[in-house]
């Protein structure tokens, strides 16, 4: 009996060990990424929200691979060139297939572009691709894009927003079904998605860059930050997104992981340059001198991030690095106000959308500083959609908004300052001309000079009260080697098990 018992015990122990090691092995090849918001769909063409694209970009690849500096590297494309300023010829890598076996060829590129522009799909990226007039299949692996005018940001835009999809499967599926179960040629295949729960992706052997290190990636959503941090600290999550300054300290102290910075946001205070006191450049400069942005950044953001001098983030290609951010100088600010006819300052309003990070503290600090130079700003916290309505209705005098710290200057400077795009609070024909020049100059070095001049001009003109760039922070488990990207997307093929 006792012999039998000891044998049984040994057998159970062996089984337990085997089971344990198998699951440990499986665990080592699985990456769990936790986001703060849920993806609404997984077809990159139909979605624009970050939490959706973070998953979708791993499934659907593009012609070009985006680089940290705003440039591009080969993706599904092997090479490309511009025979003239409005023609882009792209040659595809031979022998690639989509996850379902369809070939990646010129026809699939043409199909993808036409699908994206189809009004019935209502792709949020259609506007971004609207400079492309036509796509022509030259041969099985060569495609020609014609743009309406020379358009330099096109490669950058295509490296994100023109996902290439398999024509047969895509055309056969309803668009909502494809949004649930997308197919692409990216490093990961869609495996399953329990709505509200996990999205599971599996490594794709046929990826042009080789199968990624993690065999399986699970994207999970935990909206509540303390629960998300708890999941990280207990080891349930390998990478978590949305780590505020408060939680950063918790994670650093726990010793359970490290922090990595991803793309930041660039908050700014927009000024109404078309009506009221801010029509005067001196007043706009005065408020720039009147806010201690360095102190606010230090106090509220653990001193992470960068100070902004002009509208182009110092990390962005084309930024004028000779510019010094406006110094904090109360006397100078007061003198400028007096010169502009406001020796006793004035009353104004400072609106902000309540969904921005630590916005309440930022707005209070800015208003407190402005009060010292005599600009008495009444705070107006607004729900983001109300804020947007009022913004469009030109109802703000001063307003806090933000833009992604994007690597391509045209993306935001054009969008925010060109009168073709938004002319609610600022309009300047000279700026328009410079911005047109910036987007139509294909040569990268010449472009850099153009943007650097725009940056200087806007620094002096001061249509904004410039603030800072605050990074978005991820926490990463010691088991994982992953560095946050400038563009803010979670391309998980770059994650590796540590020591591998």
């Amino acid at each position: 009996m006792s012999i039998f018992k000891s044998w049984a015990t040994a057998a159970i122990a062996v089984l337990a060990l085997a089971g344990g090691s198998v699951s440990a092995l499986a665990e080592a090849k699985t990456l769990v990424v936790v986001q703060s918001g849920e993806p609404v769909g997984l077809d990159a063409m139909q979605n624009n929200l970050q939490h959706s694209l973070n998953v979708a970009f791993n499934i659907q690849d593009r012609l070009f691979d985006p680089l940290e500096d705003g440039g591009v590297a080969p993706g599904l494309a092997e090479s490309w060139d511009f025979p003239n300023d409005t023609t882009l010829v792209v040659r595809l890598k031979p022998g690639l297939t989509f996850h379902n076996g369809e070939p990646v060829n010129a026809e699939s590129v043409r199909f993808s572009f036409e699908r994206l522009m189809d009004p019935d799909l209502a792709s949020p990226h259609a506007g971004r691709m609207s400079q492309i007039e036509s796509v022509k299949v030259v041969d099985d692996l060569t495609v020609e894009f014609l743009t309406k005018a020379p358009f330099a940001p096109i490669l950058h835009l295509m490296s994100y927003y023109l996902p290439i999809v398999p024509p047969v499967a895509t055309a056969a599926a309803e668009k909502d079904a494809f949004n649930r179960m997308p197919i692409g040629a990216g490093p990961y295949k869609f495996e399953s998605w329990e709505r509200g729960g996990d999205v599971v992706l599996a490594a794709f052997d046929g990826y042009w860059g080789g199968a990624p290190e993690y065999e399986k990636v699970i994207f999970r959503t935990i909206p509540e930050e303390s629960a998300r941090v708890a999941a990280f600290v207990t080891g349930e999550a390998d990478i978590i997104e949305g780590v505020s300054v408060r939680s950063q300290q918790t994670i650093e102290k726990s010793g359970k992981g490290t922090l990595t910075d991803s793309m930041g946001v660039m908050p700014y205070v927009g000024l109404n340059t078309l009506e009221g006191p801010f029509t005067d450049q001196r007043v706009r400069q005065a408020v720039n001198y009147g806010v201690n942005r360095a102190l606010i950044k230090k106090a509220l953001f653990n001193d992470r991030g960068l100070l902004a001098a002009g509208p182009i983030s110092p990390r962005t290609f084309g930024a004028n690095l000779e510019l010094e951010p406006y110094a904090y100088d109360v006397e100078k600010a007061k003198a400028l106000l007096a010169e502009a006819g406001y020796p006793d300052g004035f009353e104004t309003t400072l609106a902000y959308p309540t969904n921005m990070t630590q916005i309440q503290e930022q707005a209070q600090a800015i208003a407190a500083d402005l009060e010292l130079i005599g600009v008495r700003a009444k705070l107006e916290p607004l729900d983001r959609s109300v804020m947007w309505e009022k913004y469009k209705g030109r109802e703000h005098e001063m307003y806090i908004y933000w833009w992604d710290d994007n690597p391509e200057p045209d993306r935001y400077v054009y969008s925010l300052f060109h009168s073709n795009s938004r002319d609610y609070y600022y309009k300047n024909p000279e700026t328009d001309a410079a911005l047109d020049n910036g987007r139509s100059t294909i040569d990268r070095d010449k472009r850099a000079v153009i943007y650097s001049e725009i940056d200087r001009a806007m620094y002096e003109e001061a249509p904004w009260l410039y603030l800072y760039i605050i990074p978005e922070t991820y926490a990463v488990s010691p088991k994982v080697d992953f560095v946050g990207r400038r563009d803010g997307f979670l391309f998980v093929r770059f994650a590796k098990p540590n020591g591998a």
Partner: protein
Amino acid sequence: MSRYILQRLIHTVLVILGISVISFTFMHLSGDPVGLILPQDATHEQIEALRREMRLDDPIYVQYMRFLTSALQGDLGTSIYTREPVVRLIQERMPATLELALAALFLSLIVAIPIGVLAAVKRGSWLDTISMTFALFGLSMPHFWLGIMFIMVFSVQLGWLPTSGRGTLAQLVMPSLALGLSLIALFARLTRSAMLEVLGQDYVRTARAKGVSEVMVVGKHALRNALIPLVTAVGMEFGFLLGGAVIIETVFAWPGVGRLVVQSILDRDYPVVQAAVMMLAIVFVSVNLIVDLLYAWLDPNISIKGGSK
């Protein structure tokens, strides 16, 4: 009785209609979703074009009538983001919400009834004091705080339970407990007071006088009658559980309707919010209706009173 049922039905329909008007108006007054759907770099022409296409430029009453007409035909609309019928999105999430609500209800009843009975039987004893103090704590603690505390203690410190998600029994424990704790408190107090009232009745005294054992007196004669008010409370609370689960679902990343609603409010996904509110309201009002009818059936006095109104 049938007149009472008819009255209650009409009443129910009016309530649902009222809720639809209020939720529709509030959601639409809070701003339009176009600015959020399109990327930051969209131009104002693109924004206005999308508004026209989504027919958001019609007056609000026209939009409401459009919604009502299709809702009456069983079409509650399509999600702005996923482009799927909202009914499907909600149906997918409903099982999770029901599971959580039922688990919380079950958990609270099996704990609350014995506590309430014991507290009533041992009225004035230390047991009574302790359980009623505990009940008061349970009632006063916010779900949100409780949820986070559970995670901190049972997941982070002790490592006993997973922090969030759905699928295993272990994942159901904390959310249902956090949701059910205030119910334990409520039901325990209710059971206690109902028991006290019943225990003072003549028939209980008679039963005791006849020499029926105390266990039989309490368990059979008293408890059965004391449970009637509890039926109403359970019905009412079940509706609240479905709505109250919003916070708990968010804290524990529970994939239910509540979380869908929160996310959709943030994204201004009107059709989803509207439909979810309507469906929760219908469940709530229907449960109320059933409880009322059940109550009327259990106690004929009520239907007479109701009918004479």
